């Protein structure tokens, strides 16, 4: 195994182990103890397995999971950032339909293999976004009558 996945495994399993320790600590210290009976049971198994996984990662014994390559990370960061801004801010701040249209168009433009220099491909992206939004509006606003936050525009 190369150094990068080993370090990644150490970080990943380290975070899981830290969560396991926190869950175990909370389970054994919080009151009323009756409410934490089941969490105590599972957190004990959780922390043992998590520490075992962390120890294996530190020793380089991890056999499964390829980690993330630099190329994959570079590829996913822009999309992930757009998705997180869309979900945690724009959907509520701008309204679901406005935010979805913007996020959809940005993601499409970011990852579409078609050329960015041709007017035709941009027109196609706008058309796909418009069709998707019409379908979403029809499905959720009209068919399911889900009232989503509308906020600034729509």
């Amino acid at each position, binding site marked *: 195994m190369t150094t990068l996945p080993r370090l990644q495994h150490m970080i990943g399993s380290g975070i899981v182990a830290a969560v*396991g320790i926190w869950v175990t600590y909370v389970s054994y210290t919080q009151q009323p103890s009756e409410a934490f009976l089941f969490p105590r049971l599972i*957190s004990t198994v*959780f922390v043992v397995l998590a520490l075992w996984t962390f120890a294996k990662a530190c020793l380089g014994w*991890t056999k499964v999971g390829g980690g993330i*390559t630099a190329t994959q990370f570079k590829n996913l960061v822009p999309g992930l950032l757009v998705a997180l801004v869309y979900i945690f801010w724009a959907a509520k701040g701008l309204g*679901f339909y406005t935010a979805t249209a913007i996020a959809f168009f940005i993601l*499409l433009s970011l990852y*579409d293999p078609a050329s960015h220099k041709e007017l035709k491909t941009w027109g196609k992206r706008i058309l796909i976004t418009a069709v998707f939004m019409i379908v*979403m509006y029809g499905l959720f606003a009209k068919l399911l009558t889900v009232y989503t936050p509308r906020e600034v525009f729509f």
Partner: protein
Amino acid sequence: MEFLYYFGDVFTPINFGLLLLGTIGGLILGATPGLSPTMAVALLIPFTFQLQAAQGLILLGAAYTSTVAGGAVSAILLKIPGAPANIATTLDGHTMAQKGEGAKALQISFLASAVGGVFGVLLLIFLTPVLAKWALAFGPSHLFWLAILGVTVIGSLDSKSVVKGLLSGCIGLWLATIGFDDIMGAQRFIFHPSLGGGINIIAALIGLFAIPQVITMFAKGRKGDGAEVLKVQKHPISGAFKELFRNKRAMGIGTAVGSVIGLIPGVGGQIAGLVAYDQSKKFSPDRDKFGTGHPEGVIAAESANNAMVGPSLVPLLTLSIPGSPTAAVLLGGLLIHGIFPGTDLFDNHPDVAWTFINSMLIGQILMCIFGLYVAGLAAKVAQVPQSVMAAVVLGLAVFGSYSVQSSMGDVYVMASLGVMMYFLERFGFSAAPLVLGLILGPIAEANFIQGSMIANATDGLAPYFLGGPLNIFLIAVVIASVAYSAYMELRTKRYTSKEEILA
């Protein structure tokens, strides 16, 4: 023969319309690489809120059945399995398509799927009521061990690493405890206001299955799939029937293997298809032709992966233990209507149970008929760029999780769990045991607490939970599944391959 009494309910206009919609939609979704049956069913759940329980389940069941079969279209025409269950179909199906026998491969694949699927659903029909009656003998300690069994079996058999599979199950069980405790009303692990009511299962399912797939598509960047749909030449359907009759052995092996594997929790369609393919090859006089575009390979693989669908629902409908991630999603679809599987389902809601099961039987036949017509369209859909698929799935996930309770908290939970799951998957953790832990956690806890109360009033905790033949049997199965998987893991010495790193 109670199922016959409810047979007509499938043919009411709305029920039949939903069955058609689920079947055709499922075929198209199944053909789309990256959209697994579990994810397709999870994304469909929000659309069932306004339907009656039976109607919602008809839609979900039809989608489940036909996404598994639809995956064969892209496996045959593009060499990209629509779902893991269709991996074995690619081996001979795509070679047949390359030889100009694409139509024949698709026809025999749908016919074999239908035969296997019908047999699987018949097993479901005849086994379920018997096991549901047997489930009446289960007390709190047995139900506790059954829930633990559900998590450990999937954790150990479905994952590449036993420890990480079990750890995923523990994470799921812990997530299930977040929120207010049912008995004492105490707050547990509420570190954000949106978690006050606990983690909503539907939002969690959408996040855990859809978001990692979206991020995986992002990680591939702007490159296209480069997949080219092979041209399909006309082939008479009667020829496909004759081919199926000629290969009765492959058909029988596929159906039997799929049915048995379907009954074992945690062992999915991918294993069913591959084992059936392998066994068919072993017993075939034409074993050298396997891999060169031999119809037997397609028949064995496709009959197996659809024969698995019905039996995989037996543990869910009888013991409330979902045998697969898709069954776990279907359980979510039942719970939102306040219906619990097991004896409650068959005693108090027989109309829901039998209409759903009957619809799966009819769905297999519709899937076969429409599969042959929709295959061309489905292959075109399979070519939709990943950029479009990623954006569509993300939009559906956000709207779907919001519509559960009209709460932004659910959207945040969906996104957080999804992003977490993507990174966990990259480090060898698996979504299936985590989901099972999340769903079975409340069942395990409720029975553990109830059992503890009974135990304190009688023999004590250890004799109550560890004594008795059924408890001992269930504990033995838990230990055996973990030990077997650990042994297999040590024996095969799976190291991270270069391909896995680059994937």
